[in-house]
Protein backbone atom coordinates (compact mmCIF):
# COMPACT_ATOMS: atom_id res chain seq x y z
CA UNK A 1 0.00 0.00 0.00
CA UNK A 2 1.22 3.38 -0.93
CA UNK A 3 1.01 5.51 2.13
CA UNK A 4 0.22 9.08 1.46
CA UNK A 5 -0.39 11.93 3.74
CA UNK A 6 -2.13 15.12 2.90
CA UNK A 7 0.53 17.71 2.51
CA UNK A 8 -1.99 20.49 2.57
CA UNK A 9 -3.97 21.84 5.41
CA UNK A 10 -7.67 22.38 4.92
CA UNK A 11 -6.91 26.05 4.56
CA UNK A 12 -4.64 25.45 1.63
CA UNK A 13 -7.39 23.45 -0.03
CA UNK A 14 -9.73 26.32 0.65
CA UNK A 15 -7.31 28.46 -1.33
CA UNK A 16 -7.33 26.21 -4.35
CA UNK A 17 -11.01 25.24 -4.31
CA UNK A 18 -12.31 28.39 -2.67
CA UNK A 19 -15.78 28.09 -4.06
CA UNK A 20 -16.30 24.62 -2.72
CA UNK A 21 -15.45 25.32 0.88
CA UNK A 22 -16.97 28.77 1.05
CA UNK A 23 -20.41 27.54 -0.06
CA UNK A 24 -23.16 27.10 2.51
CA UNK A 25 -23.81 23.55 3.68
CA UNK A 26 -26.60 21.84 1.79
CA UNK A 27 -27.68 18.26 2.14
CA UNK A 28 -27.50 16.14 -0.98
CA UNK A 29 -29.68 13.03 -1.32
CA UNK A 30 -28.79 10.36 -3.88
CA UNK A 31 -31.07 7.38 -4.64
CA UNK A 32 -29.14 4.14 -5.19
CA UNK A 33 -31.24 2.09 -7.60
CA UNK A 34 -29.63 -1.28 -6.89
CA UNK A 35 -28.90 -0.92 -3.17
CA UNK A 36 -32.40 0.27 -2.23
CA UNK A 37 -30.82 3.05 -0.22
CA UNK A 38 -30.40 6.80 -0.24
CA UNK A 39 -26.92 8.25 0.40
CA UNK A 40 -26.82 11.55 2.26
CA UNK A 41 -23.91 13.86 1.46
CA UNK A 42 -22.78 17.12 3.01
CA UNK A 43 -22.12 19.69 0.29
CA UNK A 44 -19.30 21.33 2.28
CA UNK A 45 -17.21 18.34 3.29
CA UNK A 46 -18.32 16.43 0.17
CA UNK A 47 -18.51 13.25 2.19
CA UNK A 48 -21.25 10.71 2.70
CA UNK A 49 -22.65 11.36 6.17
CA UNK A 50 -25.38 8.72 6.25
CA UNK A 51 -27.11 6.03 4.21
CA UNK A 52 -30.75 5.16 4.79
CA UNK A 53 -32.76 2.15 3.64
CA UNK A 54 -35.66 2.92 1.35
CA UNK A 55 -38.06 0.95 -0.85
CA UNK A 56 -37.08 -1.23 -3.79
CA UNK A 57 -35.42 0.32 -6.83
CA UNK A 58 -35.45 3.96 -5.78
CA UNK A 59 -35.12 6.26 -8.78
CA UNK A 60 -36.81 9.68 -8.92
CA UNK A 61 -36.13 11.71 -5.79
CA UNK A 62 -37.14 15.23 -4.71
CA UNK A 63 -37.74 17.40 -1.68
CA UNK A 64 -41.06 19.03 -0.88
CA UNK A 65 -41.10 22.82 -1.29
CA UNK A 66 -41.01 23.34 2.50
CA UNK A 67 -37.91 21.15 2.62
CA UNK A 68 -39.37 18.91 5.33
CA UNK A 69 -39.96 15.74 3.36
CA UNK A 70 -38.05 13.66 0.89
CA UNK A 71 -40.11 11.94 -1.81
CA UNK A 72 -38.72 8.81 -3.44
CA UNK A 73 -40.08 6.78 -6.35
CA UNK A 74 -39.74 3.20 -5.07
CA UNK A 75 -40.32 1.78 -8.56
CA UNK A 76 -40.49 -1.93 -7.70
CA UNK A 77 -42.73 -1.27 -4.69
CA UNK A 78 -45.13 0.68 -6.90
CA UNK A 79 -45.25 3.56 -4.49
CA UNK A 80 -43.83 6.96 -3.68
CA UNK A 81 -42.30 6.98 -0.21
CA UNK A 82 -42.26 10.06 1.99
CA UNK A 83 -39.37 10.44 4.45
CA UNK A 84 -38.98 13.02 7.20
CA UNK A 85 -35.62 14.71 6.51
CA UNK A 86 -34.93 15.34 10.20
CA UNK A 87 -35.67 11.89 11.60
CA UNK A 88 -34.80 10.10 8.32
CA UNK A 89 -37.78 7.85 8.96
CA UNK A 90 -40.50 6.75 6.55
CA UNK A 91 -43.57 8.86 7.23
CA UNK A 92 -46.01 7.50 4.68
CA UNK A 93 -46.41 6.04 1.23
CA UNK A 94 -48.32 7.82 -1.49
CA UNK A 95 -50.52 6.07 -4.02
CA UNK A 96 -48.52 6.44 -7.20
CA UNK A 97 -49.75 3.93 -9.71
CA UNK A 98 -47.40 1.13 -10.83
CA UNK A 99 -43.66 1.59 -11.48
CA UNK A 100 -43.20 5.26 -10.73
CA UNK A 101 -39.92 6.44 -12.27
CA UNK A 102 -39.70 10.19 -12.30
CA UNK A 103 -41.93 12.92 -10.91
CA UNK A 104 -42.29 16.65 -10.54
CA UNK A 105 -44.02 18.85 -7.98
CA UNK A 106 -46.35 21.67 -8.93
CA UNK A 107 -44.58 25.03 -8.22
CA UNK A 108 -47.13 25.62 -5.44
CA UNK A 109 -45.87 22.45 -3.72
CA UNK A 110 -48.86 20.26 -4.51
CA UNK A 111 -49.94 18.15 -6.42
CA UNK A 112 -47.28 15.69 -7.50
CA UNK A 113 -47.13 14.48 -11.11
CA UNK A 114 -45.71 10.98 -11.49
CA UNK A 115 -44.65 9.16 -14.68
CA UNK A 116 -45.72 5.49 -14.52
CA UNK A 117 -43.29 3.82 -16.90
CA UNK A 118 -45.10 0.48 -17.33
CA UNK A 119 -48.64 1.81 -17.50
CA UNK A 120 -48.31 4.66 -19.97
CA UNK A 121 -49.87 7.03 -17.48
CA UNK A 122 -49.12 10.21 -15.64
CA UNK A 123 -50.66 10.02 -12.18
CA UNK A 124 -51.63 13.23 -10.38
CA UNK A 125 -51.40 12.83 -6.61
CA UNK A 126 -52.44 15.20 -3.83
CA UNK A 127 -49.55 14.74 -1.39
CA UNK A 128 -51.43 16.30 1.52
CA UNK A 129 -54.57 14.23 1.16
CA UNK A 130 -52.72 11.12 -0.10
CA UNK A 131 -55.10 10.54 -2.96
CA UNK A 132 -54.95 10.22 -6.70
CA UNK A 133 -56.55 13.23 -8.36
CA UNK A 134 -56.26 12.06 -11.96
CA UNK A 135 -54.64 9.59 -14.31
CA UNK A 136 -53.62 10.99 -17.66
CA UNK A 137 -52.99 8.52 -20.51
CA UNK A 138 -49.82 9.43 -22.38
CA UNK A 139 -47.42 7.74 -24.84
CA UNK A 140 -45.55 4.49 -24.28
CA UNK A 141 -42.99 4.42 -21.44
CA UNK A 142 -43.48 7.89 -19.97
CA UNK A 143 -40.45 9.25 -18.17
CA UNK A 144 -39.39 12.90 -18.39
CA UNK A 145 -41.49 15.34 -16.38
CA UNK A 146 -41.22 19.14 -16.61
CA UNK A 147 -43.55 21.79 -15.34
CA UNK A 148 -43.71 25.43 -16.41
CA UNK A 149 -42.74 27.99 -13.72
CA UNK A 150 -46.35 29.26 -13.60
CA UNK A 151 -47.53 25.70 -13.08
CA UNK A 152 -50.00 25.81 -15.97
CA UNK A 153 -48.26 23.42 -18.36
CA UNK A 154 -46.95 19.97 -17.56
CA UNK A 155 -44.71 18.26 -20.10
CA UNK A 156 -44.22 14.52 -20.14
CA UNK A 157 -41.92 12.68 -22.54
CA UNK A 158 -42.63 9.11 -23.60
CA UNK A 159 -39.54 7.08 -24.39
CA UNK A 160 -41.04 4.81 -27.03
CA UNK A 161 -43.54 7.18 -28.64
CA UNK A 162 -40.72 9.74 -28.96
CA UNK A 163 -42.98 12.61 -28.03
CA UNK A 164 -43.23 15.46 -25.62
CA UNK A 165 -46.84 15.67 -24.44
CA UNK A 166 -48.11 19.07 -23.30
CA UNK A 167 -50.68 18.72 -20.54
CA UNK A 168 -52.96 21.46 -19.21
CA UNK A 169 -52.72 21.20 -15.42
CA UNK A 170 -56.24 22.57 -14.93
CA UNK A 171 -58.03 20.06 -17.10
CA UNK A 172 -55.33 17.35 -16.79
CA UNK A 173 -55.58 16.73 -20.51
CA UNK A 174 -53.03 16.67 -23.31
CA UNK A 175 -53.40 19.68 -25.56
CA UNK A 176 -50.39 19.23 -27.80
CA UNK A 177 -47.68 16.74 -28.77
CA UNK A 178 -44.29 17.34 -30.30
CA UNK A 179 -42.23 14.68 -32.00
CA UNK A 180 -38.63 14.71 -30.81
CA UNK A 181 -35.66 12.45 -31.43
CA UNK A 182 -35.58 8.85 -30.30
CA UNK A 183 -36.09 7.98 -26.61
CA UNK A 184 -36.77 11.31 -24.91
CA UNK A 185 -35.73 11.07 -21.26
CA UNK A 186 -35.99 14.41 -19.61
CA UNK A 187 -37.87 17.71 -19.94
CA UNK A 188 -37.08 20.98 -18.21
CA UNK A 189 -38.42 24.53 -18.56
CA UNK A 190 -36.10 27.46 -18.01
CA UNK A 191 -37.03 29.79 -15.16
CA UNK A 192 -38.37 32.43 -17.54
CA UNK A 193 -40.76 29.79 -18.85
CA UNK A 194 -40.19 30.58 -22.52
CA UNK A 195 -38.02 27.60 -23.40
CA UNK A 196 -38.40 23.89 -22.89
CA UNK A 197 -35.38 21.59 -23.10
CA UNK A 198 -35.92 17.91 -23.98
CA UNK A 199 -33.13 15.32 -24.11
CA UNK A 200 -33.24 12.32 -26.47
CA UNK A 201 -31.13 9.41 -25.30
CA UNK A 202 -30.88 7.31 -28.47
CA UNK A 203 -31.20 10.25 -30.84
CA UNK A 204 -28.22 11.78 -29.05
CA UNK A 205 -29.71 15.25 -29.20
CA UNK A 206 -31.27 17.94 -27.05
CA UNK A 207 -34.30 19.76 -28.47
CA UNK A 208 -34.84 23.35 -27.45
CA UNK A 209 -38.52 24.11 -27.82
CA UNK A 210 -40.30 27.47 -27.81
CA UNK A 211 -42.76 27.05 -24.94
CA UNK A 212 -45.34 29.39 -26.43
CA UNK A 213 -45.44 28.30 -30.05
CA UNK A 214 -44.40 24.74 -29.17
CA UNK A 215 -42.04 24.61 -32.14
CA UNK A 216 -38.52 23.26 -31.98
CA UNK A 217 -36.08 26.18 -32.06
CA UNK A 218 -33.01 24.02 -32.50
CA UNK A 219 -31.61 20.57 -31.94
CA UNK A 220 -28.23 20.35 -30.28
CA UNK A 221 -25.99 17.41 -31.09
CA UNK A 222 -22.70 16.45 -29.47
CA UNK A 223 -19.27 15.46 -30.64
CA UNK A 224 -16.64 14.44 -28.13
CA UNK A 225 -13.11 13.74 -29.40
CA UNK A 226 -12.17 10.12 -28.79
CA UNK A 227 -15.72 9.01 -27.90
CA UNK A 228 -17.96 6.85 -30.10
CA UNK A 229 -21.10 8.75 -31.17
CA UNK A 230 -23.38 5.93 -29.91
CA UNK A 231 -21.98 6.40 -26.41
CA UNK A 232 -23.33 9.94 -26.36
CA UNK A 233 -26.75 9.53 -24.75
CA UNK A 234 -28.27 12.69 -23.29
CA UNK A 235 -30.39 12.01 -20.20
CA UNK A 236 -30.55 14.45 -17.26
CA UNK A 237 -30.51 18.19 -17.90
CA UNK A 238 -30.45 21.32 -15.76
CA UNK A 239 -30.69 24.98 -16.75
CA UNK A 240 -29.30 27.75 -14.56
CA UNK A 241 -31.82 30.19 -13.09
CA UNK A 242 -30.64 32.97 -15.38
CA UNK A 243 -31.03 30.66 -18.36
CA UNK A 244 -27.50 31.36 -19.55
CA UNK A 245 -26.25 27.80 -19.32
CA UNK A 246 -27.61 24.30 -19.57
CA UNK A 247 -25.82 21.17 -18.35
CA UNK A 248 -26.59 17.84 -19.98
CA UNK A 249 -25.61 14.42 -18.66
CA UNK A 250 -24.38 12.37 -21.62
CA UNK A 251 -24.74 8.83 -20.22
CA UNK A 252 -22.05 6.28 -21.16
CA UNK A 253 -19.81 8.90 -22.73
CA UNK A 254 -19.04 9.83 -19.10
CA UNK A 255 -19.30 13.53 -19.89
CA UNK A 256 -21.47 16.44 -18.91
CA UNK A 257 -21.94 18.93 -21.73
CA UNK A 258 -22.05 22.62 -20.94
CA UNK A 259 -24.36 24.47 -23.35
CA UNK A 260 -24.68 28.20 -23.85
CA UNK A 261 -28.32 29.03 -23.03
CA UNK A 262 -28.55 31.72 -25.70
CA UNK A 263 -26.48 30.53 -28.65
CA UNK A 264 -27.24 26.85 -27.85
CA UNK A 265 -23.64 25.93 -28.63
CA UNK A 266 -21.70 23.39 -26.63
CA UNK A 267 -19.03 25.25 -24.65
CA UNK A 268 -17.30 22.40 -22.92
CA UNK A 269 -17.37 18.72 -21.98
CA UNK A 270 -16.58 17.76 -18.42
CA UNK A 271 -15.32 14.26 -17.58
CA UNK A 272 -17.29 12.60 -14.78
CA UNK A 273 -17.94 8.99 -13.70
CA UNK A 274 -19.38 6.22 -15.85
CA UNK A 275 -22.89 6.44 -17.32
CA UNK A 276 -23.81 9.83 -15.93
CA UNK A 277 -27.57 9.96 -15.46
CA UNK A 278 -29.13 12.83 -13.52
CA UNK A 279 -27.97 16.26 -12.34
CA UNK A 280 -28.80 18.67 -9.53
CA UNK A 281 -27.60 22.16 -8.62
CA UNK A 282 -27.10 23.42 -5.11
CA UNK A 283 -29.61 26.29 -4.56
CA UNK A 284 -26.81 28.87 -4.93
CA UNK A 285 -25.86 27.16 -8.22
CA UNK A 286 -22.21 27.04 -7.25
CA UNK A 287 -22.03 23.26 -7.43
CA UNK A 288 -23.62 20.73 -9.74
CA UNK A 289 -23.87 17.09 -8.67
CA UNK A 290 -24.02 14.23 -11.19
CA UNK A 291 -25.12 10.64 -10.51
CA UNK A 292 -22.82 8.13 -12.23
CA UNK A 293 -24.74 4.87 -12.48
CA UNK A 294 -22.02 2.41 -13.45
CA UNK A 295 -19.07 3.72 -11.44
CA UNK A 296 -21.27 3.93 -8.30
CA UNK A 297 -20.30 7.46 -7.45
CA UNK A 298 -21.35 11.05 -7.89
CA UNK A 299 -19.17 13.80 -9.34
CA UNK A 300 -19.16 17.38 -8.14
CA UNK A 301 -18.76 20.18 -10.68
CA UNK A 302 -17.66 23.68 -9.76
CA UNK A 303 -20.15 25.62 -11.89
CA UNK A 304 -18.16 28.88 -11.87
CA UNK A 305 -14.90 27.30 -12.96
CA UNK A 306 -16.53 24.57 -15.06
CA UNK A 307 -14.30 22.00 -13.45
CA UNK A 308 -14.96 18.64 -11.81
CA UNK A 309 -13.59 18.95 -8.29
CA UNK A 310 -14.33 15.57 -6.78
CA UNK A 311 -16.04 12.22 -7.19
CA UNK A 312 -17.61 10.58 -4.16
CA UNK A 313 -18.44 6.88 -3.84
CA UNK A 314 -22.11 6.15 -2.94
CA UNK A 315 -24.25 3.00 -3.24
CA UNK A 316 -24.74 0.83 -6.32
CA UNK A 317 -26.33 2.44 -9.39
CA UNK A 318 -26.88 5.97 -8.12
CA UNK A 319 -29.87 7.33 -10.06
CA UNK A 320 -31.49 10.56 -8.87
CA UNK A 321 -30.26 13.54 -6.85
CA UNK A 322 -32.14 16.00 -4.65
CA UNK A 323 -30.54 18.88 -2.72
CA UNK A 324 -31.93 20.74 0.29
CA UNK A 325 -32.79 24.44 0.08
CA UNK A 326 -30.65 25.38 3.04
Amino acid at each position, binding site marked *: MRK*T*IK*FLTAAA*FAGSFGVVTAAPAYTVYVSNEKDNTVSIIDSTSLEVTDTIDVGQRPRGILLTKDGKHLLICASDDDTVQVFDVKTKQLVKELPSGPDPELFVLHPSGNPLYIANEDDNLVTVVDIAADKVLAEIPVGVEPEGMGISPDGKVLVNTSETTNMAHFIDTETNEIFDNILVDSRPRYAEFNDAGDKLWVTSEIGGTVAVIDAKTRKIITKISFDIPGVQPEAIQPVGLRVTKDGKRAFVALGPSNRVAVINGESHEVEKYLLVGQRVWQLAFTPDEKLLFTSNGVSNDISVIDVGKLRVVK*SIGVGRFPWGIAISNE
Partner: protein
Amino acid sequence: MTSAPVPNRSEVSGLSLSGYLNCMRGIVWREALRFLQQRERFVAALVRPLVWLFIFAAGFRSVLGVSIIPPYETYVLYEVYVTPGLVGMIQLFNGMQSSLSMVYDREMGNMRTLLISPYPRWFLLTSKLMAGVAVSLLQVAVFLAITWFWEVEPPLFGYLAVIPALILSGLMLGALGMLLSSGIKQLENFAGIMNFVIFPMFFASSALYPLWRMKETSPLLYEICQYNPFTYIVELIRFALYGQLNLQALAIVAGFTVVFLGGAIFAYNPSKGLIARRGGPGGNAPGPKGG
Protein backbone atom coordinates in the same frame (compact mmCIF):
# COMPACT_ATOMS: atom_id res chain seq x y z
CA MET B 1 39.54 28.20 -10.90
CA THR B 2 41.10 26.80 -14.02
CA SER B 3 44.56 28.04 -13.25
CA ALA B 4 44.54 27.02 -9.61
CA PRO B 5 47.52 24.98 -8.56
CA VAL B 6 46.97 21.55 -7.09
CA PRO B 7 46.29 22.23 -3.43
CA ASN B 8 47.01 20.07 -0.49
CA ARG B 9 44.26 18.89 1.82
CA SER B 10 44.70 21.54 4.47
CA GLU B 11 44.32 24.25 1.89
CA VAL B 12 41.14 22.63 0.61
CA SER B 13 39.57 22.49 4.06
CA GLY B 14 40.24 26.18 4.46
CA LEU B 15 38.11 27.16 1.49
CA SER B 16 35.38 29.59 2.46
CA LEU B 17 31.66 29.14 2.00
CA SER B 18 31.53 32.03 -0.44
CA GLY B 19 34.24 30.30 -2.40
CA TYR B 20 32.11 27.18 -2.57
CA LEU B 21 29.10 29.19 -3.72
CA ASN B 22 31.21 31.01 -6.28
CA CYS B 23 32.49 27.75 -7.62
CA MET B 24 28.99 26.28 -7.84
CA ARG B 25 27.71 29.40 -9.51
CA GLY B 26 30.45 29.16 -12.11
CA ILE B 27 29.57 25.57 -12.93
CA VAL B 28 25.81 26.19 -13.05
CA TRP B 29 26.28 29.32 -15.13
CA ARG B 30 28.43 27.51 -17.66
CA GLU B 31 25.80 24.82 -18.05
CA ALA B 32 23.00 27.39 -18.31
CA LEU B 33 24.90 29.36 -20.94
CA ARG B 34 25.59 26.23 -22.88
CA PHE B 35 21.93 25.31 -22.71
CA LEU B 36 20.68 28.73 -23.71
CA GLN B 37 23.05 28.89 -26.63
CA GLN B 38 21.83 25.57 -27.89
CA ARG B 39 18.36 26.67 -28.90
CA GLU B 40 17.73 23.40 -30.70
CA ARG B 41 18.33 21.53 -27.49
CA PHE B 42 15.77 23.65 -25.70
CA VAL B 43 13.24 23.17 -28.46
CA ALA B 44 13.98 19.45 -28.68
CA ALA B 45 13.55 19.08 -24.94
CA LEU B 46 10.10 20.61 -25.23
CA VAL B 47 9.01 19.05 -28.48
CA ARG B 48 9.54 15.51 -27.20
CA PRO B 49 7.00 15.65 -24.31
CA LEU B 50 4.66 17.89 -26.28
CA VAL B 51 4.47 15.36 -29.10
CA TRP B 52 3.50 12.77 -26.51
CA LEU B 53 0.92 15.08 -25.04
CA PHE B 54 -0.66 16.29 -28.24
CA ILE B 55 -0.49 13.17 -30.37
CA PHE B 56 -0.08 10.11 -28.19
CA ALA B 57 -2.40 11.31 -25.44
CA ALA B 58 -5.04 12.37 -27.96
CA GLY B 59 -5.32 8.79 -29.15
CA PHE B 60 -5.63 7.50 -25.61
CA ARG B 61 -8.17 10.04 -24.41
CA SER B 62 -10.90 7.54 -23.70
CA VAL B 63 -8.59 4.91 -22.21
CA LEU B 64 -8.67 6.38 -18.74
CA GLY B 65 -11.54 7.93 -16.87
CA VAL B 66 -12.46 4.53 -15.50
CA SER B 67 -10.94 4.69 -12.05
CA ILE B 68 -9.93 7.29 -9.53
CA ILE B 69 -6.42 6.86 -8.20
CA PRO B 70 -4.67 9.10 -5.66
CA PRO B 71 -3.72 11.91 -5.74
CA TYR B 72 -6.63 12.66 -8.09
CA GLU B 73 -10.01 13.26 -6.49
CA THR B 74 -12.03 12.64 -9.59
CA TYR B 75 -11.74 11.13 -13.06
CA VAL B 76 -9.00 12.64 -15.16
CA LEU B 77 -8.33 12.75 -18.87
CA TYR B 78 -5.28 10.95 -20.17
CA GLU B 79 -3.52 14.27 -20.78
CA VAL B 80 -3.80 15.04 -17.09
CA TYR B 81 -2.57 11.59 -16.10
CA VAL B 82 0.41 11.54 -18.44
CA THR B 83 1.71 15.04 -17.63
CA PRO B 84 3.73 14.09 -14.51
CA GLY B 85 5.18 11.19 -16.50
CA LEU B 86 6.23 13.58 -19.26
CA VAL B 87 7.78 15.90 -16.68
CA GLY B 88 9.75 12.87 -15.51
CA MET B 89 10.66 12.20 -19.13
CA ILE B 90 12.06 15.70 -19.51
CA GLN B 91 14.23 15.14 -16.47
CA LEU B 92 15.25 11.68 -17.62
CA PHE B 93 16.44 12.95 -20.97
CA ASN B 94 18.06 15.94 -19.34
CA GLY B 95 19.91 13.72 -16.86
CA MET B 96 21.18 11.52 -19.66
CA GLN B 97 22.00 14.50 -21.83
CA SER B 98 24.17 16.02 -19.15
CA SER B 99 25.92 12.69 -18.87
CA LEU B 100 26.42 12.91 -22.62
CA SER B 101 27.94 16.33 -22.14
CA MET B 102 30.27 14.81 -19.56
CA VAL B 103 31.54 12.29 -22.03
CA TYR B 104 32.11 15.21 -24.39
CA ASP B 105 33.79 17.21 -21.62
CA ARG B 106 36.07 14.28 -20.93
CA GLU B 107 36.98 13.90 -24.55
CA MET B 108 37.64 17.62 -24.89
CA GLY B 109 39.56 17.86 -21.64
CA ASN B 110 37.10 20.20 -19.90
CA MET B 111 36.41 17.58 -17.29
CA ARG B 112 40.04 17.56 -16.28
CA THR B 113 39.87 21.31 -15.90
CA LEU B 114 36.88 20.93 -13.65
CA LEU B 115 38.30 18.19 -11.49
CA ILE B 116 41.60 19.97 -11.09
CA SER B 117 39.83 22.62 -9.01
CA PRO B 118 40.81 22.72 -5.31
CA TYR B 119 37.26 22.02 -4.23
CA PRO B 120 36.38 18.48 -3.18
CA ARG B 121 35.34 16.15 -5.96
CA TRP B 122 31.91 15.39 -4.46
CA PHE B 123 31.21 19.09 -4.39
CA LEU B 124 32.30 19.65 -7.96
CA LEU B 125 30.29 16.73 -9.24
CA THR B 126 27.20 17.69 -7.22
CA SER B 127 27.50 21.24 -8.56
CA LYS B 128 27.62 19.83 -12.04
CA LEU B 129 24.48 17.86 -11.28
CA MET B 130 22.77 20.92 -9.83
CA ALA B 131 23.56 22.72 -13.06
CA GLY B 132 21.75 19.98 -14.95
CA VAL B 133 18.82 20.14 -12.52
CA ALA B 134 18.54 23.92 -12.99
CA VAL B 135 18.32 23.40 -16.74
CA SER B 136 15.66 20.71 -16.31
CA LEU B 137 13.61 22.99 -14.03
CA LEU B 138 13.58 25.56 -16.79
CA GLN B 139 12.37 23.00 -19.30
CA VAL B 140 9.70 21.66 -16.95
CA ALA B 141 8.44 25.16 -16.15
CA VAL B 142 7.88 25.93 -19.83
CA PHE B 143 6.29 22.52 -20.39
CA LEU B 144 3.88 22.92 -17.47
CA ALA B 145 2.96 26.39 -18.67
CA ILE B 146 2.01 24.92 -22.06
CA THR B 147 0.05 22.03 -20.55
CA TRP B 148 -1.98 24.52 -18.52
CA PHE B 149 -3.53 25.66 -21.76
CA TRP B 150 -4.25 22.01 -22.50
CA GLU B 151 -6.50 21.88 -19.44
CA VAL B 152 -3.93 20.27 -17.19
CA GLU B 153 -4.65 22.56 -14.26
CA PRO B 154 -3.23 21.39 -10.94
CA PRO B 155 -3.79 23.67 -7.91
CA LEU B 156 -1.47 26.67 -7.80
CA PHE B 157 0.14 25.36 -4.63
CA GLY B 158 1.12 22.24 -6.56
CA TYR B 159 3.38 24.28 -8.82
CA LEU B 160 5.39 25.30 -5.75
CA ALA B 161 5.28 21.91 -4.06
CA VAL B 162 6.63 20.22 -7.16
CA ILE B 163 9.89 22.21 -7.15
CA PRO B 164 11.62 20.29 -4.32
CA ALA B 165 10.35 17.04 -5.87
CA LEU B 166 11.85 18.06 -9.22
CA ILE B 167 15.18 18.97 -7.63
CA LEU B 168 15.43 15.58 -5.96
CA SER B 169 14.33 13.63 -9.02
CA GLY B 170 16.63 15.70 -11.23
CA LEU B 171 19.53 14.92 -8.92
CA MET B 172 18.77 11.22 -8.98
CA LEU B 173 18.55 11.01 -12.76
CA GLY B 174 21.60 13.25 -13.18
CA ALA B 175 23.58 11.08 -10.77
CA LEU B 176 22.50 7.99 -12.70
CA GLY B 177 23.64 9.64 -15.91
CA MET B 178 26.94 10.60 -14.33
CA LEU B 179 27.48 7.07 -13.11
CA LEU B 180 26.77 5.74 -16.58
CA SER B 181 28.96 8.34 -18.25
CA SER B 182 31.92 7.19 -16.20
CA GLY B 183 31.64 3.85 -17.94
CA ILE B 184 31.37 5.21 -21.47
CA LYS B 185 34.54 5.69 -23.40
CA GLN B 186 33.23 7.54 -26.39
CA LEU B 187 30.39 9.78 -27.36
CA GLU B 188 29.12 7.29 -29.92
CA ASN B 189 28.26 4.81 -27.21
CA PHE B 190 25.54 7.10 -25.98
CA ALA B 191 23.00 5.48 -28.30
CA GLY B 192 23.28 2.46 -26.06
CA ILE B 193 22.15 4.53 -23.11
CA MET B 194 19.14 5.54 -25.13
CA ASN B 195 18.15 1.95 -25.85
CA PHE B 196 19.11 0.31 -22.61
CA VAL B 197 18.37 2.99 -20.04
CA ILE B 198 16.00 5.72 -21.18
CA PHE B 199 13.40 3.67 -23.03
CA PRO B 200 13.07 0.77 -20.56
CA MET B 201 12.97 3.18 -17.63
CA PHE B 202 10.31 5.32 -19.24
CA PHE B 203 8.07 2.59 -20.61
CA ALA B 204 8.24 0.21 -17.65
CA SER B 205 6.95 2.77 -15.24
CA SER B 206 3.74 4.47 -14.18
CA ALA B 207 4.47 7.37 -16.54
CA LEU B 208 2.17 6.24 -19.34
CA TYR B 209 -0.32 3.96 -17.60
CA PRO B 210 -1.40 3.53 -14.00
CA LEU B 211 0.13 0.42 -12.47
CA TRP B 212 -3.27 -1.16 -11.78
CA ARG B 213 -3.85 -1.25 -15.51
CA MET B 214 -0.42 -2.79 -16.02
CA LYS B 215 -1.30 -5.43 -13.44
CA GLU B 216 -4.42 -6.36 -15.39
CA THR B 217 -2.42 -7.10 -18.53
CA SER B 218 0.79 -8.53 -17.17
CA PRO B 219 1.65 -9.26 -13.52
CA LEU B 220 5.32 -9.66 -14.52
CA LEU B 221 5.45 -6.25 -16.12
CA TYR B 222 3.75 -4.87 -13.03
CA GLU B 223 6.51 -6.35 -10.86
CA ILE B 224 9.16 -4.84 -13.13
CA CYS B 225 7.50 -1.44 -12.91
CA GLN B 226 7.45 -1.75 -9.15
CA TYR B 227 11.23 -2.15 -9.10
CA ASN B 228 11.84 0.70 -11.49
CA PRO B 229 13.01 3.80 -9.62
CA PHE B 230 11.58 5.97 -12.40
CA THR B 231 8.07 4.87 -11.32
CA TYR B 232 8.69 6.54 -7.97
CA ILE B 233 10.04 9.67 -9.59
CA VAL B 234 6.84 9.97 -11.58
CA GLU B 235 4.67 9.33 -8.52
CA LEU B 236 6.66 11.79 -6.40
CA ILE B 237 6.14 14.46 -9.05
CA ARG B 238 2.48 13.50 -9.57
CA PHE B 239 1.61 13.77 -5.87
CA ALA B 240 3.62 16.96 -5.37
CA LEU B 241 1.88 18.57 -8.33
CA TYR B 242 -1.40 18.04 -6.48
CA GLY B 243 -0.01 19.34 -3.18
CA GLN B 244 0.49 15.94 -1.60
CA LEU B 245 3.50 14.01 -0.39
CA ASN B 246 4.00 10.39 -1.36
CA LEU B 247 6.34 9.26 1.42
CA GLN B 248 7.19 5.92 -0.15
CA ALA B 249 8.20 7.58 -3.40
CA LEU B 250 10.21 10.20 -1.53
CA ALA B 251 12.12 7.58 0.46
CA ILE B 252 12.90 5.48 -2.62
CA VAL B 253 13.97 8.42 -4.79
CA ALA B 254 16.12 9.85 -1.98
CA GLY B 255 17.69 6.40 -1.44
CA PHE B 256 18.52 5.94 -5.10
CA THR B 257 19.92 9.48 -5.27
CA VAL B 258 22.38 8.66 -2.49
CA VAL B 259 23.37 5.38 -4.13
CA PHE B 260 23.82 6.82 -7.63
CA LEU B 261 25.59 9.93 -6.39
CA GLY B 262 27.92 7.87 -4.21
CA GLY B 263 28.59 5.58 -7.14
CA ALA B 264 29.31 8.50 -9.48
CA ILE B 265 31.69 10.17 -7.03
CA PHE B 266 33.48 6.88 -6.56
CA ALA B 267 33.61 6.25 -10.30
CA TYR B 268 35.05 9.69 -10.97
CA ASN B 269 37.82 9.15 -8.47
CA PRO B 270 40.74 8.65 -10.81
CA SER B 271 42.70 6.53 -8.36
CA LYS B 272 39.89 4.11 -7.54
CA GLY B 273 37.05 4.59 -9.96
CA LEU B 274 36.02 2.92 -13.14
CA ILE B 275 37.82 5.48 -15.24
CA ALA B 276 41.19 4.41 -13.93
CA ARG B 277 40.37 0.74 -14.30
CA ARG B 278 39.05 1.11 -17.81
CA GLY B 279 41.96 3.21 -18.87
CA GLY B 280 39.67 5.77 -20.43
CA PRO B 281 40.66 9.31 -21.35
CA GLY B 282 40.18 10.50 -17.79
CA GLY B 283 42.11 7.58 -16.41
CA ASN B 284 45.15 8.06 -18.62
CA ALA B 285 45.30 11.74 -18.10
CA PRO B 286 47.74 13.14 -15.61
CA GLY B 287 44.88 14.42 -13.54
CA PRO B 288 44.72 15.85 -10.06
CA LYS B 289 45.06 12.48 -8.43
CA GLY B 290 47.51 12.04 -5.65
CA GLY B 291 49.49 9.24 -7.29
